[in-house]
């Protein structure tokens, strides 16, 4: 029998055969068997966004004012607030002279019957006017979007329009407004500048005549589908159907000078309609919203100590080492549990990078602190009231009020402009994955058989063992300093894994740690260039499956000794196992 003889044919498995094996595993990921592909893709994206969140530097130009249960209780108001109460609130907010305000409250139904005294007009009548010569702020209200499949002009290919486009649709962008008129109480439609659904903007009056010094009213569209977890800036392939973040971006840039506002400038030529369409085309791709890990220090006067994680410094900066440390903790601890469930704010990161203040601060808060948060800023007014569901899930903070998503999307625009984070085109995404997988298949012989190509086995085993050891020590140190959750069991499990891997596959830990690091690092670097985080966890699984499969073709199939000769613990284990009759045969 030639059972222990290495087979030359196996050791030289053709390159194309190796590529086929690798692509077969990648296809499994693509077919999404048992949802492994989509689950790992989501996990990869969330993981990268979370680890990269400390490196996000917010613009400090966006603020959220929140009406919540505590506010309602304090002023003794019910829900919804009466038009008069809302009018007073808006008046107070506008007295701080913000550049633009978005009201994330829907005015679909009247609050009271006609003649009850509380009229929708009471919402707008108290709004202050600006001094002569000054530019009035923009005041945008939420309106539901109309389904573009039913209301928009059909695209050139004859199909139905959808909410989300990743490129300019065939036939170009339209200027359909896509507003569900019924989502706005009828007496407010004209002041808000809402025209009938499907009508072109140029066909209808934009708004009822208002004094030039009064706030300029408009709407931002909420409600869409088919965009996954991404945030669309323009709906239905229309340059006029702006969602709150993009509507606010336009309104803010019309009043303030910000470097990223240059992305809203026309490149020249071809008339205003073509220029508007060309600008809109830069923002047609939905956004993957990046979240920050450091709340603004500007909101600190309104929060009790210990509610939020550590904020930025007074100038909005954070030391580089602090950002790195926070990323490292998110990476190391996030690998074993969902950090958003932690009770310690430094781990769960409950507060977003845009400041969030409660509405009653407008009346009694420190004027200087309020001016720094509101004057000249883009302000979102929203609600977070028990029983009224308006939550979104953030990969960094957990479930947060929906208005914060709009605010963060605008902040992304003010930070990155047209280079905001978006999905790679599907072809490019697949090409990158295929290239990486094919490279692994081609390099498999070197990786699997030429063991001393880079480092000796003993050294690799020691590095792998050390990696697990450092991880266990990290968990132990976190358990010693943490006030909430401890990680003793996890540390013990890591030590167990370290011992098992050292005895069975001592060099594998290092190899896969290296692959993991390279994959995660590539995803993080890609983020820096505005590329969406690709499915690096799925790719890692594909690589592991490919290498393990090719191993049996490329390496001699002699039974492995136990413990492995390169194991650090082999001398101790061999002595131990000799005393155990069942394992004696396996010992060297």
């Amino acid at each position: 029998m030639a059972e222990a003889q290495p087979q030359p044919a196996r050791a030289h498995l053709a390159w194309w055969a190796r590529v086929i094996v690798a692509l077969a595993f990648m296809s499994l990921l693509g077919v999404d068997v048992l949802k492994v592909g989509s689950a790992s893709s989501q996990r990869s994206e969330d993981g990268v966004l979370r680890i990269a969140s400390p490196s996000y530097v917010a613009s400090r130009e966006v603020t959220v004012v929140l009406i919540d249960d505590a506010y309602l209780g304090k002023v003794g108001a019910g829900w919804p607030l009466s038009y008069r109460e809302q009018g007073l609130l808006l008046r107070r907010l506008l007295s701080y002279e913000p550049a633009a305000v978005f009201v994330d409250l829907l005015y679909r139904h009247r609050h009271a019957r006609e003649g009850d005294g509380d009229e929708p007009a009471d919402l707008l009548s108290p709004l202050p006017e600006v001094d002569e010569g000054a530019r009035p702020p923009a005041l945008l209200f939420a309106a539901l979007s109309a389904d573009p499949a039913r209301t928009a002009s059909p695209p050139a290919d004859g199909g139905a329009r959808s909410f989300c486009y990743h490129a300019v649709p065939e036939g170009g962008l339209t200027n359909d407004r896509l507003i569900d008129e019924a989502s706005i109480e009828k007496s407010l439609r004209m002041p808000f500048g809402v025209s009938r659904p499907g009508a072109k903007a140029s066909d209808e009056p934009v708004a009822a005549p208002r004094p030039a010094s009064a706030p300029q009213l408009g709407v931002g569209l909420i409600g869409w589908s088919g965009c996954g977890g991404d945030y669309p800036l323009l709906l239905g392939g229309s340059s006029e159907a702006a969602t709150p973040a993009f509507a606010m971006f336009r309104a803010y840039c019309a009043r303030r000078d910000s470097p990223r506002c240059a992305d809203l400038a026309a490149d020249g030529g071809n008339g205003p309609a073509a220029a508007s369409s060309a600008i809109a085309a830069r923002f047609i791709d939905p956004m993957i919203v990046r979240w920050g890990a450091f709340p603004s220090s500007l909101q600190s006067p309104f929060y009790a100590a210990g509610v939020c994680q550590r904020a930025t410094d007074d100038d909005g900066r954070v030391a580089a080492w602090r950002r790195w440390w926070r990323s490292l903790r998110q990476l190391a601890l996030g690998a074993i549990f969902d950090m958003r469930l932690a009770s310690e704010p430094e781990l769960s990161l409950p507060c977003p990078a845009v400041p969030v203040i409660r509405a009653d601060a407008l009346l009694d808060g420190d004027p200087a602190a309020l001016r720094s948060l509101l004057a000249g800023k883009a302000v979102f007014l929203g609600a977070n009231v028990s029983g009224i569901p308006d939550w979104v899930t953030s990969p960094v903070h957990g479930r947060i009020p929906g208005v914060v998503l709009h605010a963060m999307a605008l902040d992304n625009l003010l930070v990155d402009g047209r280079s905001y984070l978006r999905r790679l085109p599907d072809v490019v995404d697949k090409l990158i994955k295929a290239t990486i997988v094919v490279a692994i298949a081609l390099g498999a012989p070197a990786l699997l058989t030429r063991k001393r190509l880079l480092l000796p086995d003993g050294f690799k085993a020691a590095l792998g063992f050390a990696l697990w050891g450092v991880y266990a020590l990290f968990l132990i140190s976190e358990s010693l300093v943490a006030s909430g959750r401890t990680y003793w069991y996890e540390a013990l499990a890591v030590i167990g894994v370290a011992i098992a891997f050292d005895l069975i596959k001592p060099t594998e830990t290092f190899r896969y740690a290296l692959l993991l690091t390279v994959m995660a690092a590539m995803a993080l670097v890609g983020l820096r260039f505005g590329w969406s985080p690709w499915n690096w966890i799925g790719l890692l699984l594909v690589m592991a499956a490919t290498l393990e499969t090719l191993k049996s073709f490329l390496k001699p199939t002699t039974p492995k000794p136990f413990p492995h000769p390169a194991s650090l613990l082999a001398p101790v284990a061999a002595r131990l196992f000799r005393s155990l009759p069942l394992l004696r045969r396996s010992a060297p």
Partner: protein
Amino acid sequence: MKRNVSLAVAAAVVLAVGSFTAAPAAHAADAPRTCAKALKKPVGAAGKSARKKIGLFDASGKFLETVPASDIDADAVVEDCKEDLGLVQIKVSGKLQWVDRLDVDIRLPENAPCVVESNRQRPDHVEPVSSGAGEHCEPTKPENSRGG
């Protein structure tokens, strides 16, 4: 017997003293949080600047009109206030009018919010959502029910 009587007297004294001292505290808890502090407070110069305008409201918070802040009487003090709406009553052009507290720069820093709980939920949080039942809502009776 004597001892029992003296104990009862002592208890009565303690109760009486307790109720006297507790009464102002209870009253303070019921009192408006800001009005008491704002009443008779003179309207500051910041509220009367010539360029500034103030809004006039009725007692229910309905907006009436805008007037120059210089119309506020020179010796105007806060005569009354509405806690829920944040309005104060002062003399404007010789008449008592309701104006927004912010317009006349009457702030009560001790009343500023101090958030003690962040506005986020854990990702596994479940919250029942209800629009509530109307006062005229009558539950459907089972078909076989004979009623009562």
